[in-house]
């Protein structure tokens, strides 16, 4: 995902169109060629996930598609997905969403639309993946809130200082060790002996 003035370029991409042979597929293949993408058609089943790794985008058929076609559970596709929609029945649209389709093309497929669908789907995919990673990281941090509190308390005790100074000390220690605060806190807690003797990390 680049800045707003960035010109997207899909040259060298491989697109897999999961749709029975049809005029719509021919139209998509022509659009692929125009923007530098190698398009391939498959139906009805996809290969195993490893073989799918070569594809940069997957186009799925909202009208006849079903979960069993995919070698991964709904929502776990390792690439952006574009839905090809004929019937705009809510159930069919919901199915494409469950598989992570962030962009759509309405049938009949004409001479345009794939480019914008790719821009939207690829940027949404990158954003979603980055968000998932960030959420996992935040969850882990959250689960370690307890250990940070404990380490702060230990430092208050061993340094005889207030909470703010203790937390600053913890942050300094983490930076010095090039570790996350949570990891540094785990070290302090592990090294603390409640009889009052100072440990290596916090001792001075």
């Amino acid at each position, binding site marked *: 995902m680049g800045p707003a*003035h960035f*010109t997207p*370029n899909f040259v060298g991409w491989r697109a897999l169109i999961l749709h029975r042979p049809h005029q719509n597929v021919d139209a998509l293949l022509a*659009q692929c*060629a*125009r923007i530098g993408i190698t398009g391939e058609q498959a139906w009805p089943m996809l290969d195993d996930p490893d073989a799918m790794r070569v594809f940069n985008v997957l186009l799925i058929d909202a009208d006849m598609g079903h979960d069993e076609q995919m070698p991964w559970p709904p929502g776990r596709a390792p690439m952006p997905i574009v839905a090809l929609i004929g019937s705009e029945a809510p159930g069919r649209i919901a199915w494409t969403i469950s598989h992570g389709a962030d962009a759509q093309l309405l049938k009949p497929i*004409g*001479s*345009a639309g794939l480019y914008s669908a790719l821009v939207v789907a690829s940027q949404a995919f990158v954003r979603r993946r980055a968000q998932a990673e960030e959420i996992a990281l935040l969850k882990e941090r959250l689960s370690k809130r307890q250990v940070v509190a404990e380490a702060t308390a230990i430092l208050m005790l061993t340094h005889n200082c207030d909470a703010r100074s203790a937390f600053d000390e913890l942050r300094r220690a983490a930076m010095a060790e090039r570790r996350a605060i949570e990891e540094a806190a785990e070290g302090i807690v592990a090294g603390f002996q409640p009889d009052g003797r100072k440990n290596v990390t916090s001792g001075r």
Partner: protein
Amino acid sequence: MSAYPVAILFSRSGGYSRPAEQGYFGALAAVADINADASYPFKLEAHHADPQGNADRYAALCRDLIRNTAAQHVVGCTTSWSRKEVIPVVEKLDALLWYPCVYEGFEVSENLVYIAACANQHLVPLLDYIVPRFGLRAFLTGSNYIWGWETNRIARDILHRSGGSVLGERYVPIGDEDIAHLIEEIRAKRPDFILNNLIGPSSYAFLAAYRALGEEDAAFKPENCPVVSCNLYENEIGLMGPVAAGHYTVSSYFRSLADRENSLFAERMKTRYPERVADAFFVQAYASVIMIAEAIRRAGSDDAQKVLEVVRTHQIATPLGPIKVDRATNHVSLSAHIGRARPDGDFDVVHSCESPMAPDPFLTATPLQRSYAEFAGATPKLRVV
């Protein structure tokens, strides 16, 4: 002798009638030439509608023209905005729109033939010429619609990737002549050049005010900080007189191109329309009609798909050079010439690309990181003599 209808859809009135009328006259000139040429076993019948520069009128008028005259071919549209309005009509009725104006790209319709440059054939060679000679710092202007927005975005992308910068970007509504704020901002920011994507009266008003600024401060004379355009040609330059002199335009066609065939063509058009200049807008529409006629002759039919097949498989001689339509994109290979406007309204062609450039409407084959920095860094500002 059979006659084939050809629909002509240009705005002879409204906010950009000056360039649009060029398309109208160019198409009519070609129809007259075909009808006077005994080697064509048919006549063309031109049917014109005037959308008056109102984007909302194009689709309805185009539909009426096709339905009422049974035309398979429409030559028309000047702005991208109007072209986008017409696409669904020609796609639905399976007619062909021959679009004879430069545009920003990122479009391919099966029912359009693009007889003019897209960005890799105009903006890219223009920047390639201008940046090494004047510098990397641009000011971007445009009329407030898709042409200016997208052309400026591509320019920004190219400049940012190539070590350049954009000092400002300003838009005015189509037809607006109140551009004092633009001049003030340029005076304050002092760019190396100005990319002008204004159209019609806004563009004329801007160049007049910019000329006045240059008289106050030599830093803004064209030889120091030129205004560069992708669609400002002889017909409008002539209207403006000396205020446009010294500024640059990129085009696939200039009247002053020196080859003999063009000199003959330019002379002939001058005799026919003494008050008019056959510029790129005119010639691209002219070439569109020539291609339609030649394809009808070869196909023996004006059927849109048959005609399209002919122009995709045969080179057809036009004043733009021999043209064959690229099957994948419906665009054409074109030369890029850089012209510097003269006070008399013609251009001195100061640079031409070596051979016609293939169309690349989605900019997939055109490197956007250009090698400007080495030029602009190594030499202080070059002066064009």
